[in-house]
């Protein structure tokens, strides 16, 4: 009983919106902001959006609900949550491996995510002072070719993340998401209004939403499934860890639906903020991650008030990155502190330091280590990305769906899911048992073959 009390000592979110804001903050990140609009635009526009929404319903939401159920039932970090719920369901405690895999994936992702988020921070100042004398590709090359510069911004970003997480659930993460998420929403709406007035908005609308079913192929389906799975921060323990702090009277299904809707809405708004500017300056919409640092900077250099709009855009990106990074650090910190190995503050410091050291490898992958081969032709950063995003996350997501669908005791599930409409419950059970594991398994398989 004493151990149980200690395990559940992290605290809880205050108010039902804190969980929703925190989980949305975790889901909305850099990949979501540039990834979704780009994929939608190049894969049939409205047709892709429809398929994506379908994938959210049959893959993303069922796994998200499963993660929250496990987290809230146990009230612990992902490792102990998986272990305790498995034991309560009279199954082997080996299921805790799923928690370990999530935490490990989160650490690897944060190590390179922090470097990229650091570049966003750097770009706040670059876009404010850029006169356009240096072209945006040269500017980007100069930023990434300097290891000292990348490491400095990576350090600043990691310190910010560690400070928030070490302050705890109520005073750290809870308080910050209540500041960061409205700020993200405000900046996003401002950028959309700006693009609506000054950019080629009609062309962007057509690019993003005009349905072109002739462009839909099996690859489109795979892209939509991948986006639905990866954009909701599933399989990395973040949602499970946040679910642990969710008040018992909050509805799991409704909250998950709100988080998925907000995540999709912000991704669409991001497209409506970015693409009108891209089209107005005749830039290429399919330049991938370079879209943000090269194409957008080029547009800001040319546009009126670019030195004001540019920094706002990169502040928006940094806020999105920060709200995601704290969710990547939280599961590991929660585990060390609830086990009594270290205090919460010390856990945040130690894990952040470890991530910071790993991140140096990613920072160097942009320059002096760019040719260093770690895993079959991949440099350090790409290898971290490969292990985390292509192996651990799909594996974790698939195992979570299999565990809840096939092994978790139904009475425990019903305790958490509450008075949900029976038809919705049965549909969710079907998706989590059969559809989600098969689809995520297919994503996993296609990553390799």
């Amino acid at each position: 009983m004493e151990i149980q009390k200690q395990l559940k000592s992290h605290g809880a979110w205050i108010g039902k919106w804190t969980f929703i804001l925190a989980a949305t903050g975790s889901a909305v990140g850099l990949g979501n902001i540039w990834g979704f609009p780009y994929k939608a635009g190049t894969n049939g526009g409205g047709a892709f959006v429809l398929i994506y929404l379908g994938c959210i319903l049959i893959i993303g939401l069922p796994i998200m609900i499963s993660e929250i159920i496990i987290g809230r039932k146990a009230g612990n970090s992902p490792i102990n949550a998986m272990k305790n719920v498995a034991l309560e369901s009279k199954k082997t405690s080996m299921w805790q491996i799923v928690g370990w895999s999530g935490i490990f994936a989160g650490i690897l992702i944060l190590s390179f995510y922090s470097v990229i988020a650091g570049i966003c921070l750097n770009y706040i100042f670059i876009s404010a002072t850029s006169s356009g004398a240096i072209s945006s590709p040269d500017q980007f090359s100069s930023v990434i070719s300097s290891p000292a510069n990348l490491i400095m911004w990576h350090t600043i970003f990691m310190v910010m993340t560690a400070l928030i997480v070490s302050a705890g659930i109520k005073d750290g993460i809870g308080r910050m998401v209540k500041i960061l998420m409205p700020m993200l929403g405000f900046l996003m709406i401002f950028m959309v209004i700006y693009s609506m007035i000054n950019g080629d908005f009609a062309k962007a609308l057509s690019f993003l939403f005009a349905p072109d079913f002739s462009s839909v192929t099996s690859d489109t389906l795979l892209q939509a499934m991948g986006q639905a799975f990866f954009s909701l921060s599933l399989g990395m323990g973040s949602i499970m860890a946040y679910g642990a702090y969710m008040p018992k009277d909050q509805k799991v299904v409704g909250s998950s639906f709100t988080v998925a809707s907000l995540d999709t809405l912000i991704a669409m708004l991001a497209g409506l903020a970015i693409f009108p500017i891209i089209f107005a300056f005749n830039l290429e919409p399919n330049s991938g991650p370079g879209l943000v640092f090269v194409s957008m900077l080029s547009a800001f250099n040319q546009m009126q008030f670019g030195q004001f709009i540019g920094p706002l855009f990169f502040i928006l990106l940094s806020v999105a990155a920060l709200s995601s990074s704290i969710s990547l650090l939280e599961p590991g910190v929660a585990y060390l502190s609830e086990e009594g190995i270290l205090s919460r503050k010390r856990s945040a410091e130690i894990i952040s330091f470890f991530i910071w050291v790993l991140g140096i490898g990613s920072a160097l992958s942009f320059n002096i280590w760019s040719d260093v081969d770690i895993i079959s032709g991949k440099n350090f950063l790409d290898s971290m990305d490969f292990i985390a995003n292509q192996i651990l996350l799909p594996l974790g997501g698939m195992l979570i769906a299999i565990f809840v669908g096939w092994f978790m005791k139904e009475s425990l599930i019903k305790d958490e899911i509450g008075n949900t409409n029976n038809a919705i419950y049965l549909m969710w059970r079907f998706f989590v048992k059969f559809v989600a594991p098969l689809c995520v398994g297919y994503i996993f398989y296609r990553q390799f073959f």
Partner: protein
Amino acid sequence: MNINTVKSTYGYIGFIPFAVLSITPWITGGYIGEIAIIFQIAYGSIILTFLGGISWGWRDDQPQQKKNLSIGILYSLIACLMLGLIYLNMILFALLISIISFQSFYYFEKSTYDFKHKHEDYQKFRRMLSLLVAISFLISTAYWINPYSNPLN
């Protein structure tokens, strides 16, 4: 169905033309887009006249009702002005006046004694509806001033 639900149902149905007419220009562009915006302003002026008129139906013995009657007439006159601006082809002014008028009518209604004692659902509905109408006019305004979509360019 209680009276507040009926009011909000009719209110949101009344919002549909605003939503459709503000999105249409972005989809069709050109002449149809221009006509859609003119129809939106005209529809808005009808609704604003109606809103100005409802102040005459408010309880006579509520505080400041005499002043409310005059302010109500002012909104009906503004609605006429919006129609006049369409005739003079001053669409942008008409759009901006629409945004300000609908938002300010909500604040006017909110300031009345009786509004504060209305059901919470009705108060929320009025706030949301005014915001949505203002957003719909904002979307049309953006279309009108956007250099890539302005039909006059």
